[in-house]
């Protein structure tokens, strides 16, 4: 699960908003000029990357007739906009899936934001014996593949009677993960400590400093962590697959696969509904990224590769 977060996270970490130098002004290096060949390649590649999206929309807008005869086209021929309503009114629990995903993602985000901000603040600001050793352990946990802990965690949650509930997918988030702790620590370390020293003079305790001084300033990094957690939980497939058997408990990521795998022997899966489901999975992530990219680029932790090294 942590792995899914990481590439996006690093993107944000290093992607200093590229300085788009005003084009055509001043002296341009020969090597920097785009040739027609460059445009041709970019156009072709973009088109190839974009075709699957067009195809998805085309299938999502197909009639049941087309689904049964499996005669889809890449460019939409039919426009059954009603499919977007029917997935919620048919006996497929698509609405339920969406609500389940939203509930799980909401609590997971809350859990990560609260716990990472507390732990990250402590690592950035408080002094204690053994702190560096503990931080090394935090970083080391990033190396352990999730598969190692998957089975014992399943046994643990089974013993607790949490199988077929949202708890196994939500609760671990309240204990933070190494990557988010690291992000918060980096972010807070770079803030001036004069503010908290002044606050301490005024008699504020450590929790008060965290709550009233640091937390508000952490906003960008917490938004970023929220986005990573949301993306990871919203799209998570393996976790729900292990813990949720009941159709009515499934989140969208599992539900879409569930719908696609139904009725294999006798009739074709309702591909138009599956693709509406895929769009419901995808479009919110694109919106979140679009709205949140400002914060993702703001994080800019200790300048690019230094953090990676």
């Amino acid at each position: 699960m942590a792995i899914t977060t990481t590439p996006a996270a690093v993107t944000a970490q290093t992607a200093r908003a590229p300085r788009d130098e005003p084009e055509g002004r001043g002296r341009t290096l020969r090597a920097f000029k785009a040739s027609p060949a460059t445009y041709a390649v970019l156009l072709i590649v973009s088109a190839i990357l974009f075709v699957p999206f067009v195809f998805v929309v085309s299938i999502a807008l197909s009639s049941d007739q087309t689904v049964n005869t499996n005669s889809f086209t890449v460019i939409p021929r039919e426009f059954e906009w009603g499919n977007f309503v029917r997935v919620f009114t048919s006996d497929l629990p698509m609405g339920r899936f969406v609500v389940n995903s939203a509930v799980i993602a909401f609590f997971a985000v809350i859990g990560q934001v609260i716990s990472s901000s507390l732990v990250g603040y402590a690592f950035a600001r408080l002094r204690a014996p053994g702190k560096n050793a503990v931080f090394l352990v935090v970083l080391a946990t990033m190396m352990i593949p999730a598969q190692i802990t998957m089975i014992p965690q399943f046994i643990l949650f089974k013993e607790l009677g949490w199988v077929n509930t949202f708890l196994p997918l939500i609760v671990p988030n309240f204990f933070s993960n190494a990557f988010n702790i690291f992000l918060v620590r980096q972010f807070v370390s770079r803030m001036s400590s004069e503010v908290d020293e002044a606050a301490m003079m005024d008699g504020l305790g450590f929790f008060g400093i965290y709550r009233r001084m640091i937390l508000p300033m952490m906003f960008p990094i917490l938004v970023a962590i929220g986005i990573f957690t949301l993306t990871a939980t919203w799209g998570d497939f393996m976790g729900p697959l292990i813990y949720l058997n009941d159709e009515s408990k499934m989140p969208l990521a599992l539900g879409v696969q569930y719908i696609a795998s139904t009725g294999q022997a006798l009739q074709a899966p309702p591909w138009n509904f599956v693709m509406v489901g895929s769009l419901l999975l995808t479009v919110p992530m694109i919106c979140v990224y679009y709205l949140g990219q400002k914060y993702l680029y703001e994080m800019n932790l200790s300048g690019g590769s230094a953090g990676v090294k």
Partner: protein
Amino acid sequence: MATSLSPSATKPTEPPAPSPAAPVRRMSTSRRREARYFYLFISPWIVGFLAFMLGPMIASVYYSLTDWDTFTPPTFVGIDNYVRLFTDDPIFWKALGNTFYYAAISVPLGLVLGLWLAHLLNKQVRARKLFRTLIYLPTLVPLVATAMIFQMVLAPDGPLNGLLGWFGIDGPAWLLDPDWVKPALIVLSAWGAGGATVLLLATMKGIPNEFYEAAEIDGAGSARQFWSITFPQVTPIIFFNLIMGLIGAFQIFSQVYILTSGGPNNASQMVVPLLFNEAFSYYRMGYASAISWVLFVIILLFTLVAFRTSRRWVFYETEMR
């Protein structure tokens, strides 16, 4: 909390030693209080580490030495699981081979594509933001949706074979053909190459223009400038993507599980889907735990090798000083 009493309470002078016998350097009360708060603040992580990381890891080592179906008590079998894994399980070897094959092609391919696209976008391209967005878009799609999409794209009469048909190529039945199912999964992975592109592009933008100006004065051509300036400057990012890509490739699961279930005839079976089946379809928890440790060792070895060799080709600016 004593802090609220007076400002000086936060930084008091050394109080009279309560236990004069203590030979070690003693901390001031404020320092000790700070340390207490530190451990209080990080307690969520400590609890999580013990409950969801260290405890499970120890349990996993133990399970891997047992035969356990979760319904009857585990029986200790020593290293039998590991022995069987290596000497008596052709499916495991096949899955391992497939995973290596997938990683060996998909990771370099993703890096080369990412680097190439970043290099193109680093030029003075009109509508760069649009291209950048289009290239990055696939990485925002959740894996399940990606798998659903590619189930249709890779269908025998799907768009990919349609495209190949334009060039007179009769495309295979990708997911149904043992020879083509792994390449199909690699095609799917290449769709997400844009993730690396954004990172690399951002780094390329940070390379000082003077480097290129100097190179141009020296008569270096476009290709020479790329290999002598751009490439060395982005090697740390390439290295990072290599490590993350390797780890991700060895842990491939959802695509295989949804698209092929490891078939046809185990041609696309990989380590994690196999582990998942052993654990949650056949309830062989001990055997599955053993697989997870073998996977861990493999990932660790690859990471170490990558780190070792990185000294030869990864360029860090700090080395110049």
